[in-house]
């Protein structure tokens, strides 16, 4: 296994949204550090900032202040197009609603991120089919999302996330829309990505059973980050609590 070089670091990050004309502080001066190759679950009530945290790490959102560092890249230094390019090379997304493009086949969906690489058509095909094989969807390559079950769609989405071999996988409630069996398959897959391919995985989930698959569980609540008391000692650096809050 070759471990990902992509650790994640949030340094004094603050983020506030405006809703209904009022400012809602999601994070206030938060620090977080995730080692390369870690499998980290994030739990917390709705609105606690789980998805916002994923968006910040994935470069889909920017903090009001503070720094987000993924691997050795300080995201705030990147412009929009550089950030898009960085995302294509370093981050794979898995969404709760799968978000496959409905007019494309499973194979074409997986090929999408590869179009941004310099790979030839034959190489793209090889990579995309390999990714589909890896998630057990090789025989469904020509099926469109509408012809697949939810679990199968999510496996294709995972294949798309890993097709370009990114260092970090960001999964936003990947089992949220799945039945128990499909959820287990997806979690098994994410576990394999972590153990066999050494990907750094940040997974948002409401499901404690899903969180159990992770090495480390982070609880978010009201802009604060707390380690799970049951989290194993996986060598992650300690989360630095906010001053005066004793996270």
């Amino acid at each position, binding site marked *: 296994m070759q471990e990902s070089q992509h650790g994640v670091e949030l340094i004094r990050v603050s983020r506030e949204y405006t809703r209904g004309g009022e400012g809602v502080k999601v994070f206030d001066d938060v620090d977080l550090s995730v080692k390369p190759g870690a499998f980290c679950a994030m739990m917390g009530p709705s609105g606690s900032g789980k998805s916002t945290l994923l*968006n910040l790490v*994935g470069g*889909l*959102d920017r903090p009001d202040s503070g720094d987000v560092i993924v691997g050795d890249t300080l995201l705030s230094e990147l412009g*929009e*197009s550089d950030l*898009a*390019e*960085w*995302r*294509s*090379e370093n981050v794979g*997304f898995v*969404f709760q609603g799968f*978000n*496959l*493009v*409905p*007019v*494309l086949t499973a194979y*074409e969906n997986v090929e*999408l*991120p590869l*179009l*941004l690489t310099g790979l030839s058509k034959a190489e793209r095909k090889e990579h995309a089919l390999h990714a589909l094989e890896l998630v057990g969807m090789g025989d469904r390559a020509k099926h469109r999302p509408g012809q697949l079950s939810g679990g199968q769609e999510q496996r294709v989405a995972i294949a*798309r996330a890993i097709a370009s071999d990114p260092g970090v996988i960001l999964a936003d409630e990947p089992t949220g829309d799945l039945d128990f069996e499909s959820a287990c398959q997806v979690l098994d897959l994410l576990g394999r990505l972590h153990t066999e391919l050494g990907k750094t995985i940040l997974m948002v989930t409401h499901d404690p059973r899903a969180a159990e698959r992770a090495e480390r569980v982070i609880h978010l609540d009201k802009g604060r980050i707390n380690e799970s008391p049951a989290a194993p000692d996986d060598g992650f650096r300690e989360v630095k609590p906010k001053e005066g809050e004793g996270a």
Partner: protein
Amino acid sequence: MVPLKLIWRNLLRHKLRVLLTAGSLTVAFFLLCVLQALVVSLDQGVKNASKKRLVVQSAVSLFVNLPISYQGKIETVEGVDETMKMTWFGGYYREPANMFAQFAIDADRMETIYSNVELIEGSWDEFKNTRMSCLVGKETANKYGWSVGDRVPIVGMIYPRLDGSEWQFDIAGIYDAGAEASIDDLTMYFHWDYLEEAMEAGATTGADGIGVYSVLLSDGYSQAGVGAEIDSLFENGPQRVQSTPEGEFNAQFVSMVGNVPFFVGTIGMGVLIAILLATLNTMLMSGREQTRDVGVLKALGFDGSAAFWLLLSQSLILCGFGAGTGIFLALGIEGPLQAVLGSNFPGLQINREVLTPAIILAICVALFAGLAPALRARRLTVIEALREEV
């Protein structure tokens, strides 16, 4: 870079909707081409008129004839190279429904005055030297199956023969007006002398004098300058004249058909606005449906311009296909259209003057309809796009 298959498949996401929109574009652009061809046809006699010719008519009205003696006086004006009588004959072939234009002219001068007219059958000499001979435009010859040597009976309405018989003309040539914008391919030209002789012999009645004089200018003389000279020559009568550049003279006939260009233009504008809104509606719906796809593409690393082109390309393809089909249909129907409307709209054709604005309009419709959703797609953040309820 946007995958082409993504553009294509999104375009065909709702086949019926796209088909209906493309069909509307086809009908609209077919109509626009035909309407524009009608306007161009009306206009071409004005725009392409010779800068070297004047038309001298009565200052009172086009329907008042000028004295025959004026021709010699006009020829004394400096800058006048040649003159030719032209008198409206007003007859029909066998049935009143077979009406077309006939002019009594100076047969020996027509070749000089209208130097671009080409005889595709017969000869100028035969026409000049035979008193009963005539030249017939190719369209009229085709319509009635006439050829050189045929004797054609024409019933005169302005100059009826008093014995109730028909005028007889021998076809000496069939002409193609070619680049001569002031002449169509429908008219008959015959000897003014033939008409004069009949009048002198008391075989016919009708107004004395000449309808108009066509005046060819020498090189280096302006229409305005020579025209003013001619007008001043007859300022004190017996009958004042009005010298008009040929283009302006032709324009009088366009204005005589009333507001046809305005009417046709208004219909065209209405059609255009309707199709513009229909296409915009289709593209806005498509844009809305593809919001999530745009979010996914951006999350995967495609930039805003990829999202922009994803939507705009669909609009360009849709309009290109719909409008293109309409334009090709108009090109295909050009022949039948000429057959049906050619007598009222001489020179009617789907040419560059028709095609260029149609293509420009198609691009404008595509841009207008595609820009709004394309700009929205470019502006949307991943988070906004993925959160949007479709």
